């Protein structure tokens, strides 16, 4: 098999991953799209390794590393997503807009409920203090996550 076909497959795979990253709002799905991209890389590496008949099998070695890295990334990523969900009650990437340039309104924030929940009304735990003053409504988010 000519080297071009698997490379094209991997390029397609990579592109699908890119599309997923751009199009999906859910953080988990974005994470999966990234996995697709990494797997495209893996495919590439293995194909080239074979095609080049690399005596050192650099491609394969790197593939292993990439797999490990991907695993670590996913693990960490899921942990972060979990933490975000616990704090905000959402994992939609485009709704996480507490951190933004001052004065730029975040249209998603008001509708998400996390902002409108009203920091003042929520159980203003000391931990939540800084966040509440800074951006808006994380206490509300906490409530939700615990409820969910």
């Amino acid at each position: 098999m000519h080297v071009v076909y698997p490379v094209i497959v991997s390029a397609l795979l990579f592109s699908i991953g890119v599309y997923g990253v751009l199009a999906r709002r859910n953080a988990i799905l974005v994470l999966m799209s990234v996995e697709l991209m990494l797997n495209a890389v893996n495919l590439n590496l293995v194909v080239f390794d074979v095609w080049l008949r690399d005596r050192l099998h650099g491609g394969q070695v790197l593939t292993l590393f990439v797999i490990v890295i991907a695993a670590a990334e996913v693990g960490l990523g899921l942990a972060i997503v979990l933490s975000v969900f616990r704090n905000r009650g959402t994992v939609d990437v485009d709704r996480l807009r507490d951190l933004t340039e001052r004065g730029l309104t975040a249209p998603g924030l008001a509708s998400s409920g996390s902002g409108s929940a009203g920091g003042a009304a929520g159980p203003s735990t000391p931990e939540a203090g800084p966040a509440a003053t800074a951006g808006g409504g994380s206490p509300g988010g906490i409530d939700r996550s615990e409820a969910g």
Partner: protein
Amino acid sequence: MIQSIDYVAIGAPLALASAAGLVLLLDVFLPRRTPGALGLVALAGVLVAGGLVAAQAAGGGERRTFCVPASGAGPGDGCSFVVDGFTLVLSGLVLGAGVVVVLLSMTELAERRIPPGEWYFLLLCALTGAVLLPAARDLATLVVALELVSLPVFALTALKRYDGRASEAALKLFLVSVVSTAVMLFGVSLLYGLTGTLHLDRLSAALSAVPGASGVVAVAVVLVLAGFAFKVAAVPFHFWAGDVYQGAPVPVAALLSVVSKAAGFAGLILILTTGLREQAALWGPVIAVVSALTMTAGNVLALRQRAALRLLAWSSVAQSGYILAPLAVVGGNAFAASVAYLVIYAAMNLGAFAVVMPVSRTAARNELDDYRGLASRRPVAAVALAFFLVCLAGLPPGLAGLFAKVVVFRQIVEGGLGWLAVVMAVNTVIGLYYYISWTARLFAPAPSGPGRVPAAPMPVSASVAVGLAVLVTLAFSVAPQLVLSASG
């Protein structure tokens, strides 16, 4: 095939890794009451690693290990781990920064709401990666080291589990980072496919030999650069900086702005000057344009910033632009200017973070207006911060910053990139605006409103960090030769 490993060469990362493990172990066994102890252990680990680096520097010479015999795979000796002057300078930088970051962490962790064991473990891991990276001489090691710097930082950012903003920052950092990594890895795979080697010193020659695929080579080069550009927050990889700096704990922001950035630059310099030496005509203009855009974007974004950390974020983006600029000069020893700037930048930027850190604990939103009248509340801290800001702006009495800029300007001018020099000159002016307006706030009369925060005593660790940074920056101001001779 059993390789002999030069343990002296890998001493520093090894020491850090061991310290990381030790911290984790101690965290299990030590009583919970002593978070400071873990910090001291971490500090000791960093210092030991620093001692090793210093010893290597004193010993002189070059050490290589993890070598693959040159057996037809190409020129070069194929060593994956090389300790030379460049490595030592950057390792030293990273470890010095590590000391300050650990000290800042001790202040941050004093509230005991962040688990110290995990924190220091992750911190030491990131430092390990950052020390490893400048020594890496093949793409696999480079990638692994880069990830070793990145992954712990995500976790560190998110370690304020109770803080939604920290989590959000972590997620943003994570997303942008993994996408950049994926892009870079794709580029790496292409490079591998084109050349069949991962060793940097063989890559360049092999790439030159690739027939009729210049387009693919160009794409591969651009993609590979993406990963490092993310680390240094160059345009168009800069978007994350503001949000993440603002959301992350201050020591992490300091880590991101110095250690992580140094690692990125180390990788970039290695790739460009070793791996892609022959392709300079290809990447030279790219770096020049990216550098111009980066400094402009960073400065312009910082212009209207009211939040201290965001301002520092954009300022560090701008500074990245300055550091990138000499790299655009093809050939010669231009990257030495980048390294010199990086070292001086690290000192002054860490100093700024070290002063911002304690202020952030009394002023939650950490806005520039919270610094109003700092000179009357904490004169020493105010003077120190003013000094660092003026340094960053590149004006006397901050001679270190001035000389750093002069070094960079000189390389650009000598390299014939007049337009870039002019862009940088204009950017220096824009940059001065926000630095000086912040500095002016320090000495403005304090607001007399009821919201005024009484001056809390400076935490000891933060004071030490500030003092350290001041000393180093002063040393660089009076004798920039220290940096110049090391990096040159």
